[in-house]
Structures are given as C-alpha cells and as structure tokens.
C-alpha cells in the first residue's frame, strides 16, 4: 500500500511539473511579445525595459524556464495587471470558495446519484427506473449553463426564492471561511449553484450505480441474504449497495477532471467568487499573471483529487495494489 501511494505521489508531482512546463511553452508561443506574460503592454516603454530585466526576460529561454520553475516553487506567481495584488494572495481566497462549492456539488451528486441508482436497480424496469434513465440522459446532455439559466429564470426571477448570484450580500464580506459558514445568506446563495453542478454530474454515478447494483443483485450471497429472511431494505443497502459502490469510486476520478469545467461555467453564471470565475475574468481582461496562476492552481486541484481517488480506490480494493506492483 505504502509503495503504491508513494509511486502515485511521485507521478502526481511529475504531472504537475509537466503541466507547468506546458503552460510555460504556451505563454512563450504568444504571437508578438513573449513578455506579455508579466509586463502589461500599457506601461511606459522605459518601464517595460526595466521590468524585463527585473523579471529576467532578457535572459536566454532555458534560463528563463529555470527561473520560472523556481518562482513557482517559491510561490512567486507575479502580480495582477489590474489590481497589482499578488496572484498567490488572490488565489488563496478564491481557492476555498471553489472547494466549498465543489464539495457541496459532489456531495449532492454522489448521495443522490448513488441513492437513486440503488432504487432504480432494486425496482428494475419500474417507473422510477425509466424516469431516472431518461431524465438522467437529458441532464447529462444539458450543459451546466443551460440548467443554471433555467433555475435562475424559474426560481430566482419568476418566483424570487433565491438570490441571483454572489456568495454573500454585497458589502458584507466575511473575515474567514469559518465566519462565512455561519452566514445564513451564504447557505441561501449556495443552493442554486450546487443544484446546477450536481444535476450535471448526477447521471454517471446514478447509471453506474444502477448497472453495478444489477450485477451484484444477481449473485448468490444476495439470494442467501433474502433466504435468511432479512428485510428487503437491509439486503438492498447493507448487502447489495455496499458492494456495488466500488464501481462508482472508480468513476470518481474521471468525474473530477470534468467537474472543473462545469465549475467554471457555474461560477461565472452565479458570480461565485471562486477560481473558475477568476479564470474567465482574468482571461477576458488579458490579466495574464492571474490567468496563468489560476490555471495552474486548477490543474493542481484536479491532479491532487485524481491522486486522492486513486488512493481511496486502492484502499477499497486491495487487488489494485497487487496488479499495480505486478506491472513493473
């Protein structure tokens, strides 16, 4: 187990390093001045020259690359063109907002998806099964901005049940995550984005859970449990669902990769002050240091979550460990 975790950890670091390198190359491929990445073209000519030297941009490319890597590790991610604040400080605040929304969405997706998938398999070919499959496929095909806009139009504009966006009322910025969590306005505002993210990702765990459940329900130990006279509910949850859950975990890592995309759209739609919204804003205003930092941070988030799901899966299914070490 430990050997497996360590190897995955090493791969994770290599992947982050590779993504950072790709980012370096992309920003160097920029048409025109490569210095756009750190120096705003709006500045004075002489100042630009001075900054070029300060950032080491007059040095050869390879040396610049090493400086870039060193700065990444020492968290010197530059300053925003727009607000002149340090990128790392902006990101620190945004990071937790994204994680909060993502966690809420994932919880809803997994709990509802697994629950509904379980019932669908138990009452196979019943109305719940058919309705679940069809609505699931429709929500999967609806991009998150369509679902989000629909929710906004019906629940916010027409019925006035929820605020249209933001994370807290204007002018009441809380001092920290803890204070935020105790604000009722926060919980009121997180509902719509959570439902939007949740509905987009619910289909995969739901259908996988259903299929995996059906497979488990066909096995002998379920027959035995039923024959023992256990209550159907106990057989469904304690015996069948527990074993069927493994397939959902496998999928979690793939979902995580996609979840970031939906996150960006939802944050932009509901003006949620997270990294996704920052990504859109900074790219639209050509605030390159922020755009680059945000992208890297999102990538690190995806890669770490992939790592965690891998390790979790290995913990649940020890066979993985054996086959993984058998490969090399």
């Amino acid at each position: 187990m430990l050997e497996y975790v360590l190897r995955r950890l090493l791969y994770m670091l290599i992947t982050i390093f590779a993504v950072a390198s790709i980012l370096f190359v992309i920003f160097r491929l920029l048409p025109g001045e490569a210095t756009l990445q750190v120096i705003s073209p709006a500045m004075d000519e002489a100042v630009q020259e001075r900054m070029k030297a300060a950032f080491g941009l007059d040095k050869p490319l390879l040396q610049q690359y090493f400086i870039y890597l060193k700065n990444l590790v020492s968290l010197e991610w530059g300053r925003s063109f727009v607000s002149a604040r340090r990128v790392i400080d902006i990101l620190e605040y945004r990071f937790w907002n994204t994680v909060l929304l993502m966690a809420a969405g994932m919880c809803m997706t997994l709990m509802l998806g697994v629950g509904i998938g379980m019932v669908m398999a138990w009452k196979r070919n019943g109305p719940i099964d058919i309705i679940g499959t069809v609505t699931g496929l429709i929500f999967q095909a609806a991009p998150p901005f369509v679902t989000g806009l629909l929710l906004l139009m019906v629940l916010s504009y027409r019925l006035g049940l929820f605020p249209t966006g933001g994370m807290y009322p204007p002018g009441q910025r809380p001092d920290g995550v803890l204070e935020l969590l105790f604000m009722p306005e926060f919980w009121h505002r997180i509902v719509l984005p959570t439902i939007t993210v949740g509905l987009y990702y619910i289909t995969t765990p739901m259908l996988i859970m259903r299929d995996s459940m059906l497979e488990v329900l066909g096995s002998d130990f379920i027959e035995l449990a039923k024959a023992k006279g256990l209550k159907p509910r106990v057989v469904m949850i304690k015996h069948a669902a527990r074993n069927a859950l493994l397939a959902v975990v496998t999928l979690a890592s793939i979902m995580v990769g996609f979840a970031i995309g939906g996150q960006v759209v939802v944050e932009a739609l509901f003006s949620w002050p997270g990294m996704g919204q920052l990504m859109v804003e900074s790219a639209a205003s050509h605030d390159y240091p922020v755009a680059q930092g945000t992208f890297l941070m999102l990538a690190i988030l995806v890669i770490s979550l992939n790592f965690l799901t891998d390790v979790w899966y290995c913990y649940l299914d020890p066979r993985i460990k054996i086959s993984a070490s058998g490969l090399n």
Partner: protein
Amino acid sequence: MPEGFERGLLARITRTVGEHYRIIHANPLSRIGFWVVSVFTIVAIFAPWLAPHEPWAMQYDSEGSIASLRPPSLEFPVGTTHLGYDLFSQLILATRTTLIIGAVSGFISIVIGANIGLVAGYYGGKIDEILMRLTDVLYGMPFLPFIIILIALFGRKLEFVILAIVLIIWRTSARVIRAQTIAIKQRQFITAAKARGCSNLRIIYRHILPNVLPLLLLYAAFNIAWSIITEASASFLGFGDGTTISWGGMLYELWLSGKTRVAWWWFAAPSLCIITLVTSLVFVSRAYEEVANPRLRKR
C-alpha cells in the same frame, strides 16, 4: 485502376454501411437518435439556403418598427432578439458551426486516441509507459480552462477552439482502446498472424483495429457530444469564435443583453437544440455500446 477493384471497394463500402445501419436500427433509442442527427446534418448542410434572414440583420414588422424581442409567431417562428435579429435564422446557421466543430474535433480526436491506444497497447514496455504518462499529464489539464487560456492568448477563432478541444479530448479514447488492445493482443489469431510473418503495422491495423472498431465508434460519438458541449460552454463564456454564430454564442448574447428575465424563447431555442443533438448522439452511441460490451444486451 482496374474495374474489378473499384467494384470490390464499392461492394465493401456498401456492406460496411449496411452493417452499421443494422447495428443502429437494432436498438429503438439508437434509431431515433440516428434520425435526429441526420435531420440536424441536413439542416447544417443546407443552412444558408434554409435560413430566411441574415443572422445579424435587423428585422422590421409590417408597421415599419423594429421587431425587437418578439415572442414566437408565424413571422418569426422562434422569436427575435432585443436588436430584432431573427432567432430562427440564427439557430439554423448555428447548427452548421456546431456540427462542423463536433465532426472535425470528434474525427481528429478519435484518430489520435485510437492510434495512441493501439500503439501503446500493442508494443507495451517503454513506448506504453511514455504514451500513458503523456495521457496522465493530459488528465491533469483542466479542459475548459485550457480552452479559455488558448483563446485568450491566440484570439477568438474557430481553429483554436477545435485545436484546444482536440488536444485534450483524445485522452479517454486512448486509455480505453489501449486496454482493449492489450486484451485482444493475447488472443490466438494474433499469435497466428505473427507466426505467418505479418508485420507489426499489419497486425495492428488489419487484425486488431477491426476488433476495437465498435469501441472506437462508441468513443467517436462521445467525443462529438463532449466537443459540442464544451464548445457551447466556451462560447457561452465569451471564448468562442466571435464571427460565426453558434448555439452557445446565442446564449452568450442573451446573457450579455440582460434580457434573461423576459425572453424565454431566446433561452429555450438554442438550449433545446443542444440538448436534443447531444442526447441523440448518446442514443446512437448506445447501439455501439451493446456491440462493444455484449453483456449490456441482457439489461
């Protein structure tokens, strides 16, 4: 070219097409999906002739005033925008953009994914290790943010949207096809082909490829669907091609105009198109899912 060869090729193409037609028609959902996708394709091909108006031309009503924010009517079947643009024409022309993006990125990405998967799975060892680490790196790339960055840096052009989609999206197909290739590689007919002295390339493309084809088509359909959703999302955020109209772009205009509170038709039309097309593609893919994984047929 000898006549016989041509006839042979034609017969083979007809047979292959017929075979796929049967696969799709065996499943009722796939059949519906197939026809819906066909209708969208026809609309896309004939879009400039089908659209009654220019997409960005102000329309006037009989009294001579601008037809602004009209709900659906006989004259404007899906209504108009706040600037009096005909949404029906926009919708038809956007079908073309969406299908081009879906088809081109779906095709290129499956070619890349299939080749990487086949080569990695067949040769194994160092080559496999390198190609799969590359795939892992791509799994670490957030998809939509990557498109946003590319578009922000290089400009709002269709080519860059497609390029960004293709660069990332092949990763899933490569992994899946590699796994399938490894399974097929161990079968006896491959050993027999090797014993006959077939070259590696011949084994990969003549013996293994036909066996992963259902899986490949399944992922081709998925890739097209994902490309369409991704392009729509990028366009909605303002990172699509600014000069061609797309369904996501139409919703972006709606969002920018701030008319979301009133113009339900402006929201409904492009949204329904996206959902219908993507759902149909998923339905078509289900037919291949059953071929690729026969165990599903029982359910």
